């Protein structure tokens, strides 16, 4: 489906040093540099190797269950009374979210590099579960770093990881959430440079991770394009996706970046509101800085100290965002908006009752924004939303909140 990139294509980044404009790069300690250069060399070779591609596609189809359906959400379309809404159903993937798309790719790369010990960070636990799953499948040792706060609020995923044979390290430094889990995973990796491969779960970290994770997730957008052409005979008008680090959004958006008639909207977590100090909207409320190996928009104070993010959704509770998003934000190619915890909760409940799909809290953010725009768009306008995860993991945390709001 992919057409060759035009001369002024937005799909050719990053440059050889991992920069998207001023964003991205490799801001890591010297101990890690040789490791990420190894990963880069191995990934560059794998990309060109048909055998690697064949193996990746085999697991996508037979293990993950791809392609995921593109589903016309008819009852929600009727409910909002405007544009047509389609869901890209990545919540139907094995393990219940888009995270496995990337994990299988990186695990195959690790295998190629002869590494059998895997490290991962996780917020919502979906990336941790996906990594634990791939490690069981490929007979690898798995250690997952997870903020202690997230261990509490995403307990079902902690249990799944343990069942799959992974060791979960609760992280109590800093704010005890995703940012700190990533710090700890990087610290651990520095101490095991010879044996371990770090599978990063989103389009962040030092080069080549943002590009590599995007490439592995791009299957979402490539499929959506083909499926939409089949269903409607044309491209969609608008794509909407939630943003934590930004991998499900990059995966959906990237194949459409040069289709300039397609509007792209990323939805950040607005927490209690972006005018409070409790949110995770790094593009809306942050400014460029350097953390976790790349330059990107970050929530930070005047002194350059990183602020604690807040979101009801553990998967979005991160004070940064992938560097390619920062670049697309400054170019204006993608519009970034935010929705609050409460709006996401209402969308969660609505999707459950209208479509019989319990969404994860992360895509509930995307749906909340869809709800704000759909009614005002014409009936022949087509919106595709990435339903990137299912909500089983959130049930325990959500029920008391819905009861308190009288929504249950």
């Amino acid at each position, binding site marked *: 489906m992919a057409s060759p990139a035009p001369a002024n294509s937005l799909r050719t980044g990053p440059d050889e*040093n991992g920069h998207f404009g001023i964003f991205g790069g*490799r801001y890591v*300690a010297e101990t890690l*540099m*040789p490791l990420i250069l190894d990963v880069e060399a191995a990934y560059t070779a794998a990309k060109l190797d048909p055998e690697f591609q064949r193996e990746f596609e085999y697991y996508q189809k037979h293990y993950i269950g791809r392609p995921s359906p593109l589903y016309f959400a008819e009852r929600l379309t009727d409910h909002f009374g405007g544009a047509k809404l389609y869901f890209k159903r990545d919540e139907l993937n094995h393990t219940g979210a888009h995270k496995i798309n990337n994990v299988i790719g990186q695990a195959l790369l690790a295998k190629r590099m002869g590494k059998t010990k895997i490290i991962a960070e996780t917020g919502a636990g979906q990336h941790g579960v996906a990594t634990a799953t791939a490690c069981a499948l490929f007979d690898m040792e798995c250690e997952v770093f997870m903020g202690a706060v997230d261990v509490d609020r995403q307990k079902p995923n902690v249990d799944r990881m343990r069942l799959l044979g992974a060791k979960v390290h609760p992280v109590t430094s800093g704010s005890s959430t995703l940012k700190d889990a990533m710090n700890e995973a990087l*610290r651990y990796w520095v*101490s095991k440079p010879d044996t371990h491969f770090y599978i990063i779960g989103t389009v962040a970290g030092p080069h080549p991770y943002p590009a590599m994770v995007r490439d592995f997730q791009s299957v979402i957008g490539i499929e959506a394009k083909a499926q939409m052409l089949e269903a409607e005979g044309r491209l969609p008008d608008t794509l909407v996706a939630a943003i934590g680090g930004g991998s499900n959004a990059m995966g959906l958006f990237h194949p459409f970046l040069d289709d300039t008639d397609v509007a792209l909207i990323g939805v950040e977590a607005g927490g209690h509101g972006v005018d409070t100090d409790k949110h995770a909207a790094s593009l809306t409320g942050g400014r460029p800085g350097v953390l976790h190996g790349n330059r990107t928009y970050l929530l930070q104070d005047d*002194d*350059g100290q*990183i602020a604690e993010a807040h979101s009801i959704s553990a998967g979005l509770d991160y004070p940064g965002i992938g560097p390619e998003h920062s670049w697309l934000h400054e170019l204006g190619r993608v519009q970034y908006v935010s929705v609050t915890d409460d709006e996401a909760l209402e969308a969660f409940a609505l999707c459950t009752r209208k479509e019989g799909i319990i969404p994860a809290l992360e895509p509930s953010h995307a749906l909340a924004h869809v709800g704000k725009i759909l009614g005002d768009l014409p009936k022949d306008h087509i919106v595709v939303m990435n339903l990137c995860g299912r909500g089983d993991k959130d049930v325990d945390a959500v029920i008391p909140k819905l009861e308190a709001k009288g929504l249950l």
Partner: protein
Amino acid sequence: MGAGVGRIDAKFASLRQEGRAGLGVFITAGDPDAATSAALLKGLPGAGADMVEFGMPFTDPMADGPAIQEASQRALRGGMTLKGTLALVKEFRQGNQDMPIILMGYYNPIYSYGVDAFLTDALDAGADGLIVVDLPPEEDNELCVPALKRDMAFIRLATPTTDDKRLPKVLTNTSGFVYYVAVAGITGSASASNDMITGAVERLKRHTDLPVCVGFGIKTPEQAADVAKVADGAIVGTAVVNAIKGSLDGDGGATATTVSDTLGFVKTLAAGVRGARA
């Protein structure tokens, strides 16, 4: 005696004349508060430190273990900022022209401050060198090149994972000295063996004429002495920070013995280093 890289060069020249290695001490600016930090800094030359690695506190110190993470947190809780850090350097420099101060930390606070403004203010305060953990040679244009242009030393970390092929890249644009990180890991982790350190220093010396200092995992006067036998300097961080921590009250505040306990420990390290080649 020059400031910046000149002060570092002068220090190593005088150490060579004395026929001994130097002791570098790491403390975090503002740990546990600005006044105590100023008193520690002021007392370090008298306690036998030859050089200070002055930590610029950061919320997310990716290469540091729990001890130095907590030191950063104590400092930030006490209101320390990069501006405040430079003010401490300036205060110290008014009473001492001889001991090099190396600012050590992470890039984001500097980037946020603005690279040019930071270099101007840091040199004006009397800082001589920078160790910025998350700026490898691949990102030299950010801070390293502008710093070198202004005679601010840029000291690079070489690690056990820096092989012979990569070493020249790490040593290009390095000035002042080379900091050999003795263990692949974070600060406060296990110690490397003497043989490994000796081998690593010899390897580095084949590639550079710069002084080589060794840090990470040096906790005792004996270990400092062992390193001082083979390297141009021994750098102690976590153990000193632990001495500070051990003297604090239940709320992490300084007590009457914080300065004396910490400087007392530094004296034992200095005795180790000074006696090493005797």
